[in-house]
């Protein structure tokens, strides 16, 4: 019989949400996660809009589920996620998930993503987006990034640029993330591989809207990641 995620499992899980200028999109994401019974550490990445106010509005509804941190200035998704990973350890979680806060990931996938961690099948999970659903330019950039991750980091995964990932506390303590921007996705995979942490890939749903497409890995970001990968070789 397949394992069902319990309320206790959810209570021991913290979702890290880095947020930059997400005032119009983040509220349904936060509230869907809170409704499912998961805890959150939300990091406002020096947003220029009122993202922080929107986050605090949700915190008023779920005061015990939501922990909020804010970077004084925008430092990129890598630094915001690192801040979340460091801050989350204060709450002694068993499982840590990181998700995008723009609504492209569904809270319905949380149970599936943490399941391999709870059952002990893996210590790290990456949520894999179906390539067929991806717009062409995004699909192309992602295929190149998968290839580069294979060349530079010697890890073969189906989706190296996913922002949906989960890890146990023990495994999180073993890895070291230094990336500031979108390189964090490939770096996470490299660290998992280098530290021999057993990992699993779980298919996830991705909701593409014109707004979510404006962010993430496009060709310009892919070139930036390539330069950073080359730099990290030295």
């Amino acid at each position: 019989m397949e394992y069902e995620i319990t309320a206790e499992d959810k209570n021991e899980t913290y979702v890290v949400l880095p947020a930059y200028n997400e005032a119009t999109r983040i509220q349904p994401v936060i509230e869907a996660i809170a409704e499912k019974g998961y805890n959150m550490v939300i990091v406002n990445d020096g947003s220029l809009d009122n993202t922080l106010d929107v986050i605090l509005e949700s915190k008023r509804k779920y005061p015990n589920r939501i922990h909020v941190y804010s970077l004084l200035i925008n430092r990129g998704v890598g630094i915001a996620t690192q801040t979340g990973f460091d801050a989350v350890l204060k709450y002694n979680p068993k499982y840590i998930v990181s998700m995008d806060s723009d609504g492209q990931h569904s809270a319905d996938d949380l149970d599936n993503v943490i399941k391999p961690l709870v059952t002990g099948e893996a210590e790290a999970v990456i949520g894999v987006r179906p390539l067929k659903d991806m717009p062409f330019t995004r699909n192309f950039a992602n295929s190149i990034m998968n290839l580069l991750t294979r060349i530079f980091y010697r890890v073969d995964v189906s989706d190296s640029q996913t922002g949906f990932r989960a890890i146990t506390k023990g495994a999180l303590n073993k890895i070291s993330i230094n990336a500031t921007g979108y390189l964090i996705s490939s770096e996470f995979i490299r660290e998992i591989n280098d530290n021999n942490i057993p990992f699993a890939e779980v298919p996830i749903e991705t909701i593409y809207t014109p707004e979510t497409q404006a962010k993430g890995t496009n060709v310009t970001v892919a070139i930036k990641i390539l330069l950073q990968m080359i730099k990290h070789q030295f």
Partner: protein
Amino acid sequence: MLLYSLIFPIISLIAIVGIVLRYMKRKNSFTTVILWSIFWIFVSVFALFPNLSTSFASAFGITRGLDFVIILVFIILFYIALKLYFIVDKMQNDLNKIVKEVAIQNEITLDDEEE
């Protein structure tokens, strides 16, 4: 005497005085004063005695004096660009650490907002 033979030594003198003044205001290090002074003295010497660059050039196996000056300027510019890159990179890393640490130490509570 060509015009540049007059202009370059004047520019060099102004630059050296500027660097010394900055040093006196503790805005740069003594090493910077020495390195920049050497650079500007070289510029003045080459401007005043253009034939001297040919002797320097032949010492490095370069036939024309002007080629030597151009190569030298490229090397200096490349060095400065690389040094600036490393300085900016280090400052970015330091900034990231500070911003991260400040955020972690200051969890935002609902009380903060009400204050």
